[in-house]
């Protein structure tokens, strides 16, 4: 299968600290790839580099064969690469529903002149976006708080809103940064089901950073283990769980 995301020999240092050190990973089209590793392994940094939020020092990032190295996040968004944030981000002065309505790309009103020249089209599109946002917010179970300011939502609800955001548009790849952290168990089940459905029915490719091993085991294949800024092992969850090097990295040498 073709690679949806191809990270080639990426380096990134903060001061003297090499966070990403000659890292190469490939995320296959249609896969739900897990990215795990101990704290400080460089998972989030790698995420930020892929998502265009951090410039890299050297190396290359490809999206479906196209070079996207150091492209700004908003451009990547329109190419179908979406991300969620580890610490949930939201427009806290807008309601939950408005937060979702901010998302859709290529809206007519986005262009400075369309809003004045084609008000009818803008209005029709706004209505369409609103309908879709209502659908999504119902789907992620936040319908009852749709008119609350997003800043007032709970941590778990904000995480759901993050996932909802990626459902508002036709994404090709979604980067999920610890989407499960702070979400309760029952909600988590819904979340996993939603991710699987988006993957199966809509063909979304996912790259998932997660500390919750149950969720990784249910969802991800393959799994990439990152340690000290480079790939340590890559394989199915069974292979990973039985790999002595991974066990050592996670639990220290005297366990197992």
């Amino acid at each position, binding site marked *: 299968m073709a690679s949806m995301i191809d990270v080639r020999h990426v380096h990134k240092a903060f001061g003297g600290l090499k966070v990403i050190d000659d890292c190469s990973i490939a995320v296959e089209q249609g896969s739900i790839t897990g990215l795990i590793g101990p704290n400080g392994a460089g998972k989030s940094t790698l995420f930020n580099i892929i*998502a*265009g*939020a951090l410039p890299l020092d050297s190396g290359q990032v490809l999206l479906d064969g196209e070079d996207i190295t150091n492209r*700004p*996040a*908003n451009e990547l*968004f*329109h190419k179908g690469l*979406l*991300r969620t*944030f580890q610490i949930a*981000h*939201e*427009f*806290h*002065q*807008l309601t939950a529903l408005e937060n979702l309505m*901010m*998302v859709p*790309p290529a*809206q*007519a*009103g*986005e262009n*400075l002149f369309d*809003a004045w020249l084609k008000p009818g089209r*803008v209005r029709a599109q706004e209505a369409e976006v609103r309908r879709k946002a209502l659908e999504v917010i119902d789907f992620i179970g936040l319908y009852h708080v749709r008119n609350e300011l997003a800043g007032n939502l709970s941590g778990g609800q904000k995480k759901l809103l993050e996932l909802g*955001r990626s459902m508002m*548009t036709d994404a090709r790849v979604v980067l999920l940064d610890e989407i499960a952290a702070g979400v309760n168990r029952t909600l988590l089940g819904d979340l996993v089901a939603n991710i699987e459905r988006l993957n199966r029915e809509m063909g979304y490719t996912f790259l998932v950073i997660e500390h919750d091993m149950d969720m990784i085991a249910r969802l991800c294949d393959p799994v990439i283990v990152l340690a000290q800024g480079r790939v340590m092992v890559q394989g199915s969850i069974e292979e990973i769980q039985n790999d002595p090097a991974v066990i050592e990295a996670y639990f220290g040498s005297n366990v197992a």
Partner: protein
Amino acid sequence: MNELVFFINNVIITGSVSGSIYAIGAVGVTLVFSIMRFAHFAHADMMTFGAFMVLLLTLAFPGAGGAVGLPTAVVMLPLAILLTAALAVGIDRAFYKPLRAHGVKPIVMVIASLGVTLMLQGLIRLFAGTGGQRLYIDDRKEIFRLALPFEGARAPIVVTEPQIILFILTIVCVVSLHLFLSRSRLGKAMRAMSDNPDLARASGINTNLIVAVTWMIAGGLAAIAGTLLSLDVTFKPDLSFFLLLPIFAAAIVGGVGHPYGAIAGGFVVGFAETLAVFNWGVLLRPFRDSLPEWLAQAGSLSFVGTEYKIVVPFVLLVAILVWRPTGLFKGKVIT
């Protein structure tokens, strides 16, 4: 009755004039702050620049206003707005954007904007000289005297043509800014970016475009305020020194990053200034006979002398920072 007219002329009208100018200026400062998170000190000089552009254009086409029955300077204003908006975007590209790309701290941006202040003032002095200049070149400032239909009202209410234009333009600016921020997609994107720039980018909002639009709006508003102030008094290259403090006071009083707060703050500062220097003794004159002697014979009953007018925004600023540090309205993001 004449005392009331005196009050209207010296407080209501004068306060509205400075209030409008501070309000339009403070909105620009506050928008720039909420999008780029730094205090843009060169804002008052963008006002001077706008007025300077009007001066140049008026000198070039002195007769243009007569054809439409408006002062030439006002006819030239739209062009000056465009030029000042272009200047604002240009300054950003040349000086602030490279700094932003390096991810510098806001204080570095503030210092850079002080540099831009000095540069702009130098440039304007170079071309316009250091003295004051009138923006009315080929035309005359119309002064309207409205007599009150009351018995014994001998003094008329005096309002000048540029003041009326200022009031109208202030209302137009405020209403269109409100519609822009609350209705248009771009305005909403601007609010989103002021709320959370990372998320805005991750939601596909082109933040570079938003920054450029913010500068255009700030520059355009600065040109309007600068020109109308120069029309009301005279054009001076160091106009900005008298504007900078009240404008920042207005932005902070209203709550930084809060456009409606900035408008309110502008009027609060404007009226505070005029009320502080107003001679309250005038209003007491009709009751002279029934007042205690010491009060009746006091010559001037203003809070501070006119020469200390510039201190008033300072006092207001300190008071607000002590009692309500976030401003009258809660600031930081565009809501």
